[in-house]
């Protein structure tokens, strides 16, 4: 049986979701998306520049036959703004998917939990498939699930910080209690972070800067693809117990010498 990821009515083969931000060029971005094996790609929503409205938009660089677009409400600091942004995204992209972000402050980009809960409730009631970005707080995650969110997306570390999973214990608690997919979103910096996060048992990862800001982004996209797979397989395989003392791998009988 294939290890398929189900989020609401959506099915994804890849457990890696990738962003479109901060790449050195559109060519590199597209190559990274391809190399990562991702099925789902995020975009942000912004005012068009009235004085210079022509030219390509992000949609011209994403093949929608291949990738599912997940719009976000990045840059929204109130539930009201996030709700309007989500509705505009739905109209623009003809999707009910939304990565909900209601941000608390610019320096940490931490979610405003109260605003996130308020916006999630309104958007779920309006028929959205809500994927909320949230802190690694098991209570907030439970509340978002109770509201009807299709997944919960606790951060590993602040957006763009590359610190990796700062509190693996919180993530484990969240996963243990969640009845919806848990997607670690934000803070993954390199392949080992991705593998570790997946070994905690979470269902998927969402990352952007970890790939886009690498010295060789395409190579890092490949690394993240393998790391996500490796972590997932290791989790499903069931790791060995940790031991304080050694346990020999080669037989202890018929030795030439004598052990000490």
């Amino acid at each position, binding site marked *: 049986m294939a290890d398929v990821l189900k989020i609401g009515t959506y099915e994804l083969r890849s457990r890696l979701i990738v*962003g479109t931000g*901060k790449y050195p060029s559109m060519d590199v971005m597209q190559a990274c998306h391809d190399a990562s094996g991702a099925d789902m790609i995020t*975009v*942000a*929503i912004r005012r068009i520049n009235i004085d210079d409205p022509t030219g390509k938009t*992000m949609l011209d660089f994403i093949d929608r036959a291949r990738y599912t677009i997940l719009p976000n409400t990045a840059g929204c600091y109130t539930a009201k703004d996030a709700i309007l942004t989500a509705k*505009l995204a739905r*109209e623009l992209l003809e999707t009910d998917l939304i990565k909900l972000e209601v941000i608390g402050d610019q320096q940490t980009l931490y979610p405003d939990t109260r605003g996130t809960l308020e916006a999630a409730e309104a958007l779920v009631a309006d028929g959205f498939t809500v994927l909320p970005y949230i802190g690694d707080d098991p209570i907030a995650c439970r509340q978002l699930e109770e509201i009807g969110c299709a997944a919960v997306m606790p951060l590993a570390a602040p957006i763009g910080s590359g610190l990796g999973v700062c509190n693996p214990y919180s993530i484990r608690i969240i996963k243990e209690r969640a009845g919806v997919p848990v997607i670690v979103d934000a803070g993954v910096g390199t392949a080992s972070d991705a593998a570790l996060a997946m070994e905690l048992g979470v269902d998927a990862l969402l990352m*952007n800067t970890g790939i886009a800001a690498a010295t060789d982004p395409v190579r890092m996209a490949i690394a993240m693809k393998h790391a996500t797979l490796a972590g997932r397989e290791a989790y499903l395989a069931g790791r060995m117990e940790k031991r304080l003392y050694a346990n020999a791998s080669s037989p202890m009988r018929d030795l030439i010498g004598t052990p000490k």
Partner: protein
Amino acid sequence: MTVSVNGAERECAEGVTFGELLAELGIEARAVAVARNDEVVRRAELGRERICPGDRIEIIKAVAGG
């Protein structure tokens, strides 16, 4: 009449539709979504809905983001 478009005031002919405004601004309708006073104007309505004085209009597109 005066309206605001993406936070900036602008003068607009009376009775203009959203579709006409987009065309006037050189914006392709398929590349954007529009809101008037915090309510989305459906794509199918852009050619029919008329802009009113004092309307706060948002015209957005998809951009890079995580």
